[in-house]
């Protein structure tokens, strides 16, 4: 599904990613762990199509060269990024945003756009699954939401847009244990043979709830170690510094 070969990325003439290789197949859950400044969020940003990076190497998503694709087209093709810090957008109603987003993606997939009533029925169901109070949906997007509410809102968007590849950037940060479980359940209930996950995290604790098939350790812009789910537990004990 996603093939990254020798990816190098520079921002403000500083080399951040220094030749990264990654291969994700449908049905797989990959976790990327690593210390601060290792390039984890840069990778997420680049996959989402954020401007401002000079990029070398290959990024191939289901046969398409991602580097040429604008952000919204990536989203329409099935790439989803759950933000570490979801943005507050004053004046934009959450429901209207969600409907605009869903219909943009549906249109690109050649599906019929949803009318307001059908949409509201669907979003109510999805919100209920994640324990999101309906009232949040009529509020301004993320404005005044707590950290946990913002993250749940990200997972709600993921389940609504039904992406092929979901990238979760530090989704566990700022979550209490109850919210963490809800988020993890949201991911687990969406997981199937067709889609894949790339989970970026500092800590093992999210991986206690979402079991990865592979854990990669990113350090100084490169993947320096790849292992099974057990690697996370080891890292928790030994830290990143003892690896190399």
């Amino acid at each position, binding site marked *: 599904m996603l093939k990254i070969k020798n990816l190098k990325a520079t921002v403000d003439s500083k080399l951040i990613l220094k030749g990264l290789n990654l291969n994700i197949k449908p049905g797989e859950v990959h976790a990327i762990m690593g210390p601060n400044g290792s390039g984890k969020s840069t990778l997420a940003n680049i996959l989402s199509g954020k401007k401002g990076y000079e990029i070398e190497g290959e990024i191939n998503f289901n046969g398409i060269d991602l580097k040429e694709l604008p952000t919204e087209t990536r989203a329409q093709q099935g790439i989803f990024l759950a933000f570490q810090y979801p943005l507050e957008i004053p*004046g934009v109603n959450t429901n209207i945003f969600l409907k605009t987003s869903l219909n943009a993606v549906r249109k690109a997939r050649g599906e019929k756009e949803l009318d307001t009533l059908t949409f509201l029925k669907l979003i109510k169901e999805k919100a209920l699954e994640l324990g999101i109070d309906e009232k949040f949906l009529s509020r301004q997007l993320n404005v005044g939401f707590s950290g946990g509410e913002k993250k749940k809102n990200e997972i709600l968007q993921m389940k609504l847009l039904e992406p092929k590849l979901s990238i979760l950037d530090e989704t566990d940060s700022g979550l209490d244990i109850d919210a963490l479980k809800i988020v993890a359940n949201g991911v687990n209930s969406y997981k199937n043979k067709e889609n894949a996950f790339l989970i970026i995290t500092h800590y093992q604790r999210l991986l206690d709830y979402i079991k990865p098939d592979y854990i990669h350790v990113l350090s100084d812009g490169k993947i320096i170690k790849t292992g099974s789910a057990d690697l996370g537990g080891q890292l928790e004990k030994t830290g990143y510094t003892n690896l190399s």
Partner: protein
Amino acid sequence: MKQSYDFNIKNIYNLSSVEKDIRKKNLDLFYKSGFPNKKNEDWKFTDLNSILNKSFESITNNHDTNLNKKLEIIKNFEHNYILLGNGKINSSSFKYEENGKISIKDYDQKNIINLNTPSSLTFLNNALATGGFSLEIAKNYKLKKPLIIYNYFSKNLKNKIFNNKNSIILNKGSELTLIDYTDDGSQDNFIKNIIDSVIVKDNAILKNILIQNSKSNGYFYKYIKVFLDKNAQYENYIFSSGLKFNKVEIEVDLNEENSSCGVYSALNLLNTEHQEIKTRINHNAPNCKSYQKIKNVLNDKSKGIYQGKIFVESIAQKTDAYQLSKALILDDNAEFDAKPELEIYADDVKCSHGSTSGSIDFESIHYLMTRGISEKEALKMLINGFLSEVLEKITDIKLKIFLEENLERQINGY
């Protein structure tokens, strides 16, 4: 290019010799300085003389009276209406209201409205004013439906100037929502120079909305002088995007205790559009409130200006005055100027003001795009979110939806 004037008092009928004299004197006063230019402190950001020089070869007050289109009633919500042709009453309908509660008649031009800061446009208005209306609402009468003033114009608008005065009186305890709706639809350059006198008596409430239906090559100037008595409320909403030029001056006298006023604006300016909002809020009595929120989005080569002055007399203790101006500048060639001023002679007051201008937040655009929304659509969503906040205070749902739709059309450039 320097324009020539063809201003004619002779064509204004039924004037007494005294009136003719006053008009001539005012015309002379106008000729002394011509249209306001930037040397005048009140016009420092809006050099009207040079703006008009660029677009008008000649200017005349001679005009015919045949309207350029038939009245098209807005169907979104039930309302009363007054149809003005070149500012003169053409017809009116108050079918939703009780008889004898509303008086509407032609403005009596003998009544000159005294302004604190008259400009040469005031003199021109005094010299040439015709048409206009006087509207009065009876004591304790609350209109059941809003009142729309449809502003229509004659054919062949090119180089024409219209000067009108209007008077609006809300007697004690009355309520009115007044929508000043301009529907031009021509491509002609023309000028409209208006002075409104507004009196809101004890416990009465007036909401005044200025709105524009389509793009227009109109050059509009309006001076609104407002007097508020005890517990009176006045709110003004300016949504007049789409005009080539617009300057709205609002002067509010909070003359008795517990009166309050609000000035709100949401403008999305395109091309070379130029809009100025200038306010002067005079707190002349204790315990009064004033609130101003001005939001501008500036595209292309547009220019927006906000000059807001809050004046607090020494007697006006416990004044609560607030003003905020926010601008989103989307093009390097666009400009926004803000000049907030506080002049306070009382010691127990709460006055605050703030002014920010900046560009659109790229991170927010990116966030929306990662959800499949195009950059163009994301930008529109952010602009809409920025401006629509001003509509929060409108409580009439149908009116609010109408204004939201109008705002959206503005953002799409009509």
